């Protein structure tokens, strides 16, 4: 009884204080939203659930590893060691959810955003962030529409499909020429969204310039239940090359189906989202000799190897989503460091002036033109002897390309 009486005033005091805090919060929301001097809030938006959740979860992993590293190394030094505090969001791969996350994070007082993988979500989310003049670093997002709308708050670190197609066509021309021009016909297979459609249009324009005739263009939905018909069509068309642009599941399903139907062709994809260690592990036979032009790291860089070990120790795959997001956060941290301020305007200006080179990608120092990092460059890759090897550009190559697919030579 005595103890109850003793606790009573404390309870009343607690209720009174919490009411005061709640009222205060309602009256002055900015007080709570304001970032403390010792932290910089960054909104991290990726598809953690939904059809492309595998990619989104790996993007987040890369972001979080970078933030962990920055904070463990003393934070942003020019801001007195301020830590980066991630404000995490799940776009579910849906445009409206991505935009809602931008709004929510703006209320939480973020200084910048990083995200968001799916091109349609990136396009809408960056537009939403532009209203608040908040800088948005795009880690992965392939559509060139992302950087062609005149938004000054958008900074894409990795190359879009325009640059990837340019690199891919140049790589293909070199590889085909070096092999004695065995390939002269192509069928393009692409997912029907922004990434696949945009890439296929560019390829259709550019492939004839390097002497390759496009026999057919086949679009497919996401998710696709079967590629049996595509395989049958490819068998009848007999193209020397099949060029696929698609998301992970469909990429792997198509490769396995072509293998099963014994389609005698070489697969050379541009931004084949399924190309990677998981594909190699699960479908080694279908993966053999596959070529892809995509985001990749410098194979000889010890920092990349260290991150790879760290990711694998956490039982995750070291896929491009991880290292693109990781580097996007480091890019943002560099901009914060130079700006010496988490002010949105100062940070935007700092990103626009960025010449960051402390990364392990086969890129030149960053140089943003209309929001696109002109220093970014895709890499040509091939699965050889159960390893993913870089085959293009030659200066970073870890192996010579094997072309065409020797199984059908």
């Amino acid at each position: 009884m005595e103890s109850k009486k003793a606790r009573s005033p404390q309870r009343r005091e607690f209720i009174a204080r919490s009411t005061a805090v709640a009222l205060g919060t309602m009256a002055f929301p900015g007080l709570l939203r304001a970032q403390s001097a010792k932290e910089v809030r960054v909104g991290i938006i990726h598809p953690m659930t939904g059809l492309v959740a595998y990619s989104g979860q790996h993007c987040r992993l890369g972001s979080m590893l970078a933030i962990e590293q920055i904070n463990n190394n003393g934070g942003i030094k020019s801001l007195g060691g301020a830590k980066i505090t991630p404000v995490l969001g799940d776009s579910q791969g849906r445009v409206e959810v991505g935009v809602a996350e931008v709004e929510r994070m703006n209320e939480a007082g973020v200084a910048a955003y990083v995200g968001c993988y799916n091109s349609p979500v990136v396009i809408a989310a960056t537009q939403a962030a532009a209203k608040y003049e908040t800088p948005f670093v795009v880690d992965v997002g392939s559509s060139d529409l992302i950087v062609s709308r005149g938004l000054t708050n958008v900074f894409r670190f990795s190359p879009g499909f325009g640059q990837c197609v340019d690199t891919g066509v140049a790589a293909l021309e070199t590889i085909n020429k070096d092999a004695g021009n065995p390939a002269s016909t192509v069928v393009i297979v692409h997912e029907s969204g922004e990434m696949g459609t945009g890439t296929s249009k560019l390829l259709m324009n550019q492939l004839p310039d390097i002497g390759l005739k496009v026999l057919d263009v086949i679009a497919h939905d996401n998710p696709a239940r079967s590629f049996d018909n595509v395989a049958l069509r490819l068998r009848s068309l007999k193209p020397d090359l099949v060029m696929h642009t698609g998301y992970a599941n469909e990429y792997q399903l198509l490769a396995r189906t072509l293998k099963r139907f014994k389609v005698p062709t070489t697969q050379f994809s541009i931004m084949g989202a399924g190309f990677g260690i998981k594909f190699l592990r699960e479908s080694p036979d279908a993966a053999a000799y596959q070529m892809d032009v995509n985001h990749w790291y410098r194979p000889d860089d010890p920092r990349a190897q260290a991150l790879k070990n760290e990711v694998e120790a956490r039982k995750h795959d070291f896929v491009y989503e991880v290292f693109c997001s990781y580097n996007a956060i480091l890019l943002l941290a560099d901009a914060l460091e130079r700006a010496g301020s988490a002010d949105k305007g100062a940070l935007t200006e700092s990103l626009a002036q960025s010449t960051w080179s402390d990364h392990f990608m086969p890129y030149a120092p960053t140089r943003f033109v209309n929001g696109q990092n002109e220093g970014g460059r895709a890499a040509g890759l091939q699965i050889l002897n159960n390893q993913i090897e870089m085959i293009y550009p030659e200066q970073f190559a870890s192996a010579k390309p094997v072309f065409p697919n020797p199984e059908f030579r």
Partner: protein
Amino acid sequence: MDFLLNAVVNGLMSGAIYVLVAIGLTLIYGVLHIINFAHGALLMLGMYVVFFLVTRWGLDPYLSLPLVAGAGFAVGYLLYRGVIGRFSHGKDENILLITLGLSIIFENAALFFFSAHTNIIDLDYTDDIFILGEIFIPYTKAVSFAAALVICLVLSLYISRSDLGKAIRAVAKERHGARLVGINVETVYALSYGLGIACLGAAACLLMPSYYVSPTVGHSFVLIAFTIVVLGGMGSFVGALVGGLIIGVAESVSGAFLGEQLGQIAIPIIFILVLLVKPTGLFRGAQ
């Protein structure tokens, strides 16, 4: 001509898989008169079971079919007894909401426990293919086709000949009358739900050798299964079988000639035509 023939054969093979997914749905509809919104999520769980049986215990998916179908039956029965029947209070709209809720729970639980990774099994026979002249038939699809036909036949015979089958038909036709003659309607509901999920277990075993599993994989099949059920006649086994094969062939042939994207319109066009010409579906349902 070969191309057309290949497309038809391929459509029949794909259609057989759709049949297996749809037959459980039509059974549940025929008896309980509800659409089971948890169907896709339960298919996904079945596929994860097959995946783990293969990767952890090295059990072949086809050999594990009786085990997974049996487990599916048990899960379905218990799910109905423990959750759906108990909390629906006999109202159809409650059952709809409960199955919808279950699908959300299962998918998010799968996302939490298994992550969003897609998982594939690589078997010795995954890439095997029968080549008959110019016709290509993947081994895994041929097995699925044969197994689907056998399962449909066995299930039809069981429903038409066995005492439980007769009870199921009685409940499907007139639940109050069935109760009056001493049939335990709730038990029949639970057994029917269990049988429907057992079909999904079988479908999971037949799908995994040629497909992948992820927490959202059920979405790819469940909408098409709904279409088949309505096309074939809600509650009709024969309807599900014929409807599934029609949808499979229509999808394949139209995909082959109109392209993978435009080809998809064949399914809704057939669906709309059937609804216009024969709104009850191709075959009469269980009632």
